């Protein structure tokens, strides 16, 4: 394979604004991804989710996506027919959405939704599909898959919902998973379990993972590479364990402002956003 799994070159996403013009919310993001863990960090509104959505073609109506190149496994995503694009979605590229509470259909059981994801891509008979779904639930460490299979989204906790979402997105064995803040809605303890699951998938299945978060410290302990985004741009790229080498003041600021157990910094250092960062 000559080309990496995913190539993103100069990705731009814009939305119409109230003044009648357009505002770019992702402004020239470029990166490539192999079968590895790539982290994207940035504060709220920096364009992390929009980057992920653009890759899957899930940009909200009104949004326009452009890129010099946006290719998955050599397939040009922006110019391929919609049918192929849809076949890629879920089957080859999947995305765990930010908020499990709203991303699961409230009137369908968890099981139905997982089975549906599977059957959208492969012809599997009902019984077999159910078995696979139960296995998927088990693989994300749900204790009682039989029970959870029959539950409705409102009947499970946030952590379970998030895991069900991951199971749903992984059931068709995608080669690339974009996980949009898969842990920020969770308890600290559950958070780590979910991360462990994702980690195992990359190492065991050789899947590519884009991990989106605003928690720099967490991302840097988890990912192989980290992109730091600010106002729709990548301001810095760091390798794992390379936090110490971070140079951009924004990255440094992000690193610094978290309170730490057993540390006494009063007041906490805060970010002093400078307008030139956004240029």
């Amino acid at each position, binding site marked *: 394979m000559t080309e990496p799994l995913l190539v993103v070159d100069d990705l731009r996403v814009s939305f119409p604004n*109230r*003044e*009648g*013009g357009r505002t770019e919310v992702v402004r020239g993001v470029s990166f490539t991804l192999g079968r590895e863990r790539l982290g994207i960090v940035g504060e709220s509104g920096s364009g992390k989710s929009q980057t992920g959505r653009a890759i899957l073609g899930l940009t909200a109506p009104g949004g326009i996506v452009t890129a010099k190149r946006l290719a998955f496994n050599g397939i040009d995503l922006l110019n391929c027919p919609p049918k192929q694009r849809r076949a890629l979605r879920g089957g080859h590229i999947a995305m765990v959405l930010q908020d499990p509470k709203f991303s699961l259909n409230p009137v369908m059981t968890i099981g139905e939704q997982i089975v549906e994801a599977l059957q959208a891509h492969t012809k599997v008979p009902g019984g077999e599909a159910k078995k696979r779904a139960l296995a998927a639930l088990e693989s994300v460490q749900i204790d009682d898959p039989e029970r959870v299979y029959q539950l409705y989204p409102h009947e499970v906790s946030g952590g379970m919902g998030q895991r069900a979402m991951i199971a749903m997105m992984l059931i068709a064995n995608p080669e690339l998973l974009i996980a949009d803040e898969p842990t920020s809605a969770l308890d600290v303890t559950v958070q780590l379990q979910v991360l462990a699951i994702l980690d195992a998938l990359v190492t065991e299945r050789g899947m590519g993972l884009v991990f989106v978060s605003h928690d720099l410290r967490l991302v840097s302990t988890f990912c192989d590479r980290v992109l730091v985004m600010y106002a729709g741009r990548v301001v810095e790229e760091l390798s794992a364990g390379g936090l110490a080498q971070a140079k951009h003041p924004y990255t440094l600021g992000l690193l610094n402002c978290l309170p730490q157990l057993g540390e006494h910094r009063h007041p906490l250092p805060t970010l002093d956003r400078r307008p030139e960062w956004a240029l």
Partner: protein
Amino acid sequence: MSTSPIKPGLHDWLMSDRPASRRQAAWGRAYGAWRVFMRNRLAMLGLFIVLALILVAIFAPLLAPYSPTVGDLRTTRLLPPSGQFWLGTDDQGRDILSRLIHGSRITLFVVVLVAVLAAPIGLLVGTVAGYAGGLVDATLMRITDIFLAFPRLILALAFVAALGPGIENAVIAIAITAWPPYARMARAETLTIRQTDYIAAVKLIGASPWRIVLHHIMPLCLSSLIVRVTLDMAGIILTAAGLGFLGLGAQPPMPEWGAMIANGRQYVLDHWWVAAAPGAAIFLVSLAFNLVGDGLRDALDPKGVK
């Protein structure tokens, strides 16, 4: 792309990020909503029709070519539309166009009065029931249910019969039958609103229940109410017309559109224009209100205004 009819200085003042006073802020907000509304071409069309209706109502005597109440049985009865009578004449030989023009006053009156009566009643009942809960809720909702479960036309008929004929009483009767759906809607909305943190926050500040209902909950139910009421306008005009059919709306020879339709009912097969003209007028006005309602929904959306 944005074509602002307001001169730049004023525009900036209105759109200022940092208004200097409450007044400026309020104007700014209204202006913002207006800009959103203005961009919706269909809503503007609707607004245009509504405004035209208002103007027609105001200047009815000047605009109407003939008297709305006097006709000639012998010479001008049931004439089809022509250069002389654009929309034809009715069974009393009266010019239908003139009647429509004068009738716009009554239509406006009915629509506005029903909205002013029914919407607030529904809003008040619904929000109070939803917020108070318990016995108050149960009582108010039972009353609402009874009014809902009662055949509407019967209720309206009975009220008109009791109050006596006349357009004012018809309006009251319609209002009495129109409020329950608003109450239900407001209650459902209140039930979700009252769970929110911002209501908890004002409770914490020490606000009284009445204050919470009046100042905090009602304004939130208002936008969906306004939208719903504008959507119901057609229904209101037609209920008035329905009473007119049964002879209990406007008093003859009042050119109320519903009554005109009722009158045209007899002549439908051979003199279609007698009923069609007021029917088309009602359609146009309800379309206009509907379009305005949709536009309002967008403009009133809190996230819609910058």
